[in-house]
Every structure is written in C-alpha cells, then in structure tokens.
C-alpha cells in the first residue's frame, strides 16, 4: 500500500473519512481499460464541507462512490467512522444525493422522505415526525402531500436532500446535486445547503464542476485531474462564515476562485502533455491490448 502523500490532514479522533492509497481501474476481459483513480489519499474531519472538483473523467464521482461503498476500490482502503466503508454502509452512515433527484413518482413528497425510514424500521409516528421535520428544514413543509412531478427541479432536489438527511447519516455524499439547475436556482440552493449544513452539523462531501460553487460552499476544495484520476491540490477555503450574497463579492473569494482555477489548469496542462505523449507510444500499446496481446 502507498504511503500517505502528506496532502491529507493527519488522522484525529474527529476523522470521519480516511482514504489511503486508493486506486480504481476498470477492466474488460482482464485488460485494464481505464484508470479512474490513482493513489488517492484524503482525510475528512467531522463537520467538514469538502468539495471534489475537476474536469469530467477525473474520477470525482467515482471517488464519491468509493467513499460510499457503491464502487469497490481496486487497491487501498477507505474507512468511515473508523470502520471499513462496507460496514459503514451496512450501518447506514451515508446519505446520498445525486444530480437527478431520483424521487419515486408513485410516492408523495412525504412518502419519498419516509422511504429510508421504512427500510430502517422506524415506527409510523416517528416516520411522520421525521419527514415533517426534514421537509420543514428544506422549507417544503407545505408540500407533504404533493407528488414529485408537481414540484420544480430545485424543490425536487430539496426533497432529495430531506430524504438523505432523514435518518441522520454520519456523512452526506452529494454528486453534482445542482448541476442540472439554472444558475439562479443553483445559487439559492447553495445558500440553502449551507444553512442545512450549519443547522445539522453533518459532514458533506460534494462533487461539482463549478469553481464558484466549490469555493462558496466548502471548507476545503480537493482539486483533481484526469487520466489517471488523481488529487493534484487541496485548497483551504478560509472565508468567514456565515457566508451569504456578500461573500461572493469579497476580494478573498475572488482570490480563492483564481487559486482553484489555476490549480485546475496546472492539473489540466499535465493532462494535455500526457495525452500528446500517449499519441506517440500509448496508442500502440492500446492497439496491442485490443488485439488481446496484453492481459
């Protein structure tokens, strides 16, 4: 196993997620087709808001899924609350929010929020109380009996957040949750998710490809680059809290946005160089692999 590259913060009792030396390769017929993640080390503390940012194909969604034990790493280890990720999943430590709300149209808004509670054996009155509390938290308390298709995209995503938080998971995993929303709604949802984060104290890992979003929300931004997917930089976001409309106009905000952009460009440049080099020698290796030579 690889040693921690020193990028990750040291392990403390407050560490919620500890990722060490994680690789993820996808193989077809025994031949490695893609290296989605390579040598990932990362620690996340309780109550942190960590964003994963990078170009498409950098493995940020894969990393999120590895943390959530939806995808098994090819090498390395992932611990959540001091347990292997698989155990953490069985202990229902994860709340998931995807880019699409993934609400069930045969259930009312309330019943969608109740779904995980049903599965986890909450009794009827507790389910009702939790669903009401969570929907109040996302300010949809008046829409209990509505059906998902009667709500706007932003409202549906808030229902998904309420559902993810309903059973008080240790960690909230969000995969580009606002990527499908328009810019105005997105900024409102950013504010909303900060308010919820501050109200609940949940640890959040947030995948995005929006630099302003990552800077505005996070306590740390993890910058990734593609082929192979790896962490190239971790930037601490020291903006004051609570953050609001004024935050987006502070000089420090713009400095940090620039810092993240430059970190991404550095990662991206390396990427382009690697690609140019692959055009010479890498392509022939691929061809040999396709013909079944390597495996």
């Amino acid at each position: 196993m690889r040693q921690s590259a020193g990028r990750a913060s040291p392990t403390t009792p407050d560490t919620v997620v500890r990722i060490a030396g994680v690789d993820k390769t996808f193989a077809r017929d025994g031949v490695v087709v893609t290296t989605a993640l390579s040598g990932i080390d990362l620690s996340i503390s309780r109550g942190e808001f960590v964003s994963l940012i990078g170009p498409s194909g950098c493995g940020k969604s894969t990393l999120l899924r590895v943390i959530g034990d939806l995808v098994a790493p090819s090498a390395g280890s992932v611990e959540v609350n001091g347990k292997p990720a698989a155990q953490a999943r069985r202990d229902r430590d994860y709340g998931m929010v995807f880019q699409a709300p993934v609400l069930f149209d045969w259930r009312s808004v309330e019943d969608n929020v109740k779904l995980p509670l049903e599965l986890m054996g909450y009794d009827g009155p507790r389910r009702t109380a939790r669903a009401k509390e969570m929907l109040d938290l996302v300010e949809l308390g008046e829409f209990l009996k509505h059906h998902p298709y009667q709500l706007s995209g932003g409202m549906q995503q808030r229902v998904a957040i309420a559902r993810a938080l309903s059973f008080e998971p240790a960690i909230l995993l969000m995969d580009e949750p606002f990527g499908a929303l328009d810019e105005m709604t997105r900024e409102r949802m950013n504010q909303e998710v900060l308010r919820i984060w501050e109200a609940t104290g949940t640890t959040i890992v947030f995948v995005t490809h929006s630099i302003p979003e990552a800077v505005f929300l996070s306590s740390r931004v993890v910058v990734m680059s593609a082929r192979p997917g790896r962490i190239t930089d971790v930037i601490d976001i020291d903006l004051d809290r609570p953050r609001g409309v004024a935050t987006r106009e502070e000089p420090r905000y713009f400095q940090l946005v620039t810092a993240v952009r430059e970190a991404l460009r550095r990662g991206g440049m390396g990427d382009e160089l690697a690609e140019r080099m692959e055009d010479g020698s890498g392509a022939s290796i691929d061809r040999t692999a396709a013909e079944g030579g390597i495996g």
Partner: protein
Amino acid sequence: MRRQAVLFGSFALVVLVAWEGVKFLGGVPWRFPNALGLGIDVFHDPPFRWAFANDLNLPHWFNILGVLGQPVQRGSDESLGTFLAGAAFYTWREAAIGFVVGALLGLVLATLFVHSRLAERAFVPYVVASQTIPIVALAPMIVYAFGPSVASVVIIATYLTFFPVTIAMIRGLRSPDPRALELMRSYASSAWDVYRKVRLPASLPYLFTALKIAATASIVGAIIGEGPGGIPDGLGRAIINFNQSYITSPEKLWGAILVSSLLGISFFAIIRLLESLTLRGRAAVPEL
C-alpha cells in the same frame, strides 16, 4: 372518458354508414314492404353487384342486430342475444382464470430472469419460441393431454397470457434509474426491499400495458380452446355451430363475432379501469 365515449360512438356511426353505403352501391336489391309502418313499399336496385357486399358476405347490420332478438333455435324461448351473452360470460370466466394464472406465471418468470442473467439467457429463447407454435396446432395437443375439460381451455388461455406479461415485466422490473438502485444500496436494503419498494412499483405501468394485451389474448385463447376442448357452453362452440349454418343464416355468426368483440372490449376496459385506479397520482397516466 366522456370524450373517448363520444369519439368511439361517432366512429361506430361512421362505420355503420359506410357499411350500408357499400351495400347501397353494390349489394343485392332491397325490398322493404311497408317500410317504417307507413304502408310504402321501398325498393332499391344497387347500380353494381359486388360479391363481398352481398347479403351472405356482408349482411345488413340491422339484420345482425335483429337476429339477436330472435329465438336461438326454432321454437326456443331463449333469444340469440341472451344465449350469446350467457356463452360470453362462460367464456370470460375461463379466460379470466387463464389470465390470472398467466399473469402470475409471467410475473414469476420475469422476476426470475431479472435476478438471474443465467436463467434469462437459458430460458427466454424458449419463452419466445413457445409463442411461435400456432395455437390451433397446440390446442388439440393440450386437450389430448389434459382431457376435454375447462382445465384445458384455461391452460390455453394461460399460454397466451403469460408471454406479454413476461416480456413487459422483464423490461418493467429493470426500468428503475440505476441511481435509484444505488440509493437503495446506500440504505443497505435487501434484494427483497429493492423488489417491493422500487422494482415492482416502477414496473406497474409496464404490467398494465401487458395485461391489456393479455386480456384480449386470453379471450381469443379461450374461444379457440373451446372447440377441441369440447366445451358446449361457451362462445367457441357457438361460433363453430354458426359457421356451419352460415349459408342459411350468416347474421348469427356476425352476431357471435359482435358479442365476442364486445367481450374483449369489456375485459380490456376492466383492466384499463384497474390501471387508472392503481396508477392514480403518478406523473404520466397513459390514455389507453
């Protein structure tokens, strides 16, 4: 619903008018002594003579309706209409049993195939092949195996029902968004929970589409099965009998066809009603 009924009625009217229009142009001469009780003799000699429009091949529809009110046999006090309605109900019961058994069989098979790629690869080709055997070839074999009884007829109806349900439910049970399955995995839910909370509810629109096809197919299956099955009380025997007397009274067979299709439409409508009750509140409830 009302709009649909109006459209359905209007189209029926168009068909009836076209029907009589064809006979007016190319049927056999009409004679109505004392038409409409007015004491006028009406006689019409169509300008053409088309074989398909003569009274044997295309009886006047009012004669078809009329024969339904007449005794089923000379001297009988039961009208043809009542007789056919009773036969239709009898056939419907056979079809309905086959329908329920076939739907359950289809559900079980689809569930198996969705959870086992191996089973799917091994058995789906046979499920498909089973439907390429003509039912007229298979029906006598089933009757030979299970005896001339209602059971044979039910098996034939089942045979025609399970197929659309199997195929549609494989699709329906696989229809949930992959992320919905990831979500369920993140809740550490069992395969059974995924099935009853996500796969099954997501598949219901597919199920009802298949059930509507199966409803009409099960009735065709029951009618066909009643012939070799030797069931005297259903529409199948009535159709065979009226076939034999077609030269002398074609209206009776047309009447039996009319009742058969009304039976099919009614069964379809029942499923459609169940569908709209079950899927109420969902985003897209299909029109048909």
